[in-house]
């Protein structure tokens, strides 16, 4: 990752980016570029998009994905536990918060992968240090000053900051740039709240091509010039994409929904930015948390549902994945002010058309806690990042290992993510998704060695209704969308027979 140029050399050169608007421009305020300045690299081809939703303050994971059949949960949270009858059942004794109806319906369609109990070793309970850890992708005891997304973007745009791509490399809806997009060689994010307003604001910005001196103050000046150049360069393409793009669904009147609506519009309008960051705050629920937490998750759930509907209607949903994260979960025990103090692990949500859907991992163990009374994480958060970088953004495992300076096992989050082989298991058939299904269903299996398989549909009497696939497969994960629109409503069986001798059967309910 280490670039050959020193940081100050980079800063010196970066300032050159503002070439194009000369000092002699007549009339102030100056104009944003009408044509593109020299030195731009060719556009990077349209690819997949990651939309990160940051839950600032530390989301209470146990009241998000709720172990509503666990007596310990109720004993430790007498005033703030959410009852089974109120919660939305998922499976294996896991329940969603009652306000997450939008998320639940996406989950039922197979568009939500929930990874349970995510964290890292030696968790930090400071908001600020923990946020930095999640943003930089470091171990607990390592301080990195570059965001993990910035390191990904440095890989994707090797010419930056000497040359800049035509479209913003990262967009953050807001005002203060996150560490996620910052790096030693410059900032990758363009930050704004509204595309049109941003364009208007930038129109008075001056730029020049002078190289600041190599002094402390010169470094700060170079930084200011980099921001102003990037603003001038990107305000036009952002405004144009917003004008060209559209929203096909109605979004709720919340701040997060507004942010996601803008993201959808920009993607729809052809902006080629691969990473977006949206933020919702208020999760630091030390006191009287019930209403506040419910309201926050209603906002997220409704906004995400509207966004997903919008993208799907516009047929751009397959390119886009959302991921939630928060700096930590909260203490298992409630505190004395009907809230929860800072804790450790919590679930993450990955949402989109190409996720496998379902739950990864089980309810956290509420009795085997760390010395502080907090959950012990089951998955490392960088397993989630690695999986997204690899299976959604197309990075090689070498690259993801470089980004995190370590190799993390991927999790079965996406349809194309490898399934995890359990000891002695050579082949797995997943639950059909969605289930119940109508019209179409997605069937998926994984073979952990070369074998011959037959995937077929049976009725409850054991009559084979049709073969979906039969043949030799290599080790890997296989997905088959099946058209079931001709089948009458009822219960069916999906069966996978393998030359290894195993036969696996899953129940499928077809509705009309």
């Amino acid at each position: 990752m280490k670039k050959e140029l020193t940081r100050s050399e980079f800063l010196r050169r970066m300032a050159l980016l503002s070439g194009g608007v000369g000092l002699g421009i007549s009339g102030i305020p100056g104009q944003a570029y009408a044509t593109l300045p020299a030195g731009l690299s060719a556009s990077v081809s349209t690819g997949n998009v990651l939309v990160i939703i940051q839950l600032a303050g530390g989301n209470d994971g146990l009241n998000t994905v709720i172990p509503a059949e666990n007596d310990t949960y109720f004993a430790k949270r007498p005033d703030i536990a959410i009852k089974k009858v109120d919660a939305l059942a998922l499976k294996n004794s896991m329940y969603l918060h009652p306000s997450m109806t939008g998320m639940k319906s996406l989950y039922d369609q197979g568009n939500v992968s929930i990874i349970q109990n995510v964290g890292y070793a030696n968790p930090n309970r400071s908001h600020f240090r923990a946020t930095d850890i999640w943003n930089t992708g470091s171990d607990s005891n390592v301080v990195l000053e570059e965001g993990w997304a910035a390191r990904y973007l440095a890989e994707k745009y090797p010419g930056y900051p000497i040359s800049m791509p035509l479209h913003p490399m990262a967009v953050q809806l807001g005002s203060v740039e996150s560490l996620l997009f910052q790096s030693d060689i410059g900032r990758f994010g363009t930050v704004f709240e509204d595309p049109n307003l941003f364009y208007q604001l930038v129109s008075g910005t001056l730029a020049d091509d002078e190289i600041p001196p190599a002094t402390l103050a010169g470094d700060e000046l170079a930084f200011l010039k980099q921001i102003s150049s990037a603003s001038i360069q990107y305000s036009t393409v952002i405004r144009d994409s917003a004008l060209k793009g559209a929203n096909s669904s109605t979004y709720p009147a919340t701040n997060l929904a507004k942010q996601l609506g803008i993201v959808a519009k920009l993607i729809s309008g052809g902006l080629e930015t691969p990473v977006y960051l949206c933020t919702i705050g208020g999760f630091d629920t030390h006191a009287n948390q019930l209403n506040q937490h419910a309201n926050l998750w209603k906002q997220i759930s409704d906004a995400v549902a509207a966004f997903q509907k919008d993208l799907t209607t516009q047929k751009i949903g397959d390119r886009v994945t959302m991921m939630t994260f928060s700096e930590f979960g909260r203490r298992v025990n409630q505190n004395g002010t009907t809230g929860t103090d800072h804790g450790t692990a919590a679930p993450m949500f990955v949402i989109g058309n190409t996720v496998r859907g379902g739950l990864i991992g089980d309810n956290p163990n509420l009795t085997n806690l760390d010395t502080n009374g907090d959950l012990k994480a089951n998955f490392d958060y960088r397993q989630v990042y690695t999986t997204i970088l690899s299976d959604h953004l197309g990075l090689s495992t070498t690259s993801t290992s470089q980004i995190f300076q370590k190799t993390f096992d991927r999790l079965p989050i996406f349809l194309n993510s490898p399934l995890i082989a359990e000891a002695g298991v050579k082949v797995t058939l997943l639950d059909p998704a969605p289930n119940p299904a109508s019209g179409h269903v997605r069937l998926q299996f994984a073979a952990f060695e070369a074998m011959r398989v037959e995937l077929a549909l049976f009725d409850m009497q054991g009559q084979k209704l049709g073969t979906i696939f039969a043949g030799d497969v290599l080790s890997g994960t296989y997905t088959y969308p099946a058209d079931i629109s001709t089948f009458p409503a009822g219960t069916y069986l999906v069966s996978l027979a393998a030359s290894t001798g195993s036969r696996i059967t899953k129940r499928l309910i077809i509705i009309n």
Partner: protein
Amino acid sequence: MPVWNATNVGHLLARTLFGYSKNDLSIALGYASYNYLLDLTILKDVPTPAAPNTWVSTVPAASQTTSGETGTWYREFNYWWFNLMHKEGLNMREKMVLFFHNHFSNERDKVVYPQNMYAQNVLFRKYAFGNFKQLVKEISIDPSMLIYLDGNNSRGAAPNENYARELMELFTMGIGNYTENDIKQAAKVLSGWQVSGLTASFVPARWYTETGVTVFGKTAKFDVNALIDHIFDQKATAEFICRKLYKEFVYYKPNEAFITQMAAVFRANNFEMKPLLKFLFTSEEFFTAVYIGSKIKNPTELMVGTSKLLELPSPDYINMYDMSKLLQMQLFQPPNVAGWPGQRDWISSTTYSYRGGFTDSLITGKRYNGVAVTGKLVPVTYAQTFMNSEKAVEFVDDVSTLFLAFPITAKKKSFLLDTLLGGTIVKNWSTYLPGANVNLQQFFKAVMRLPEFQLC
């Protein structure tokens, strides 16, 4: 003692005040020594200002929020504080009040009542140059703080850890100098308080019942004051606050060797602010040339400072209040308990653009969105207060030197000169030309649109 000259004195004023005018600079130079300048004006104790209004002593009530009074009062409170900053003269007190507001960050969204935040603001003013340890003791039971970090209603049997954690992490010691168990134990000590209206009271029945708790290895029946004393006995504490002062007033990347010196001075003076500030602002370190112009102005410095610089007699505080939100420094609403991180975090594509919109508005009398701004600059009158106003080249020199802590190149100066002249030639320049007003408007906008203007 550092060299006494206009550059160094300008640097001192830029960092200890919310900016300065050319008149401020010449008064400061009249003191002729750093000792006099600091003792007689910058660090001088000045009278407590009158309250913004009578609402400050009305008992907080939910009805004030439904009636809209809460919002109105916060606006008044903001305008009042902007005015104190604008009228600060050569005194650093308001800068220290803002420093403490940022350090002991409380958000109005959670505290709700301006009465409580006003009382806290008064506390900061009382200790602006006073004893920091005593301030920490008082802030620990300040109603606004009790509300903000959930000390309110925290009980010893099941304490809320919020304040205990931030007290150690953000207010006194810094991360890495305490354990999770220290937090849990301190949370018990800090329990038992209850806020009612404008006051906080201690309810012994809500306190911890153990015979003692162990914090940093010492076991005792600590109360709040004993706990704070114990925290200040830890080596990290003096260094932590000195590091924060250094980052705010000198350079955002700390010089640890110098911070050790500051901490020694602080301890030797029993955590009194004034001797520490005097030490800092007479040190060779502070006046090291490379630090001059290396600070990115915070939005309050930018807004109040530009108004002072342009000698606006009555700047538009409504404009400042509304813009403070867009520039991400709404007073009484820092982003979180860590306050505003400062320096490069002030600047994003959006806030950089809004900064230009703000400085333009003081010249054009219009905000970026067309809303009128009162008290705008009268360019010709202002220009004529410069001795060289009729000599274009010298005038551009003088304005650049005063406005920009970062020296600009000959090429940029020639761009500014062209802007000022607007087609005429140097020889013909005069502020009495028919078009001079427009030219001066363009010129002042251009100077303040230079990225150098964001530095001080």
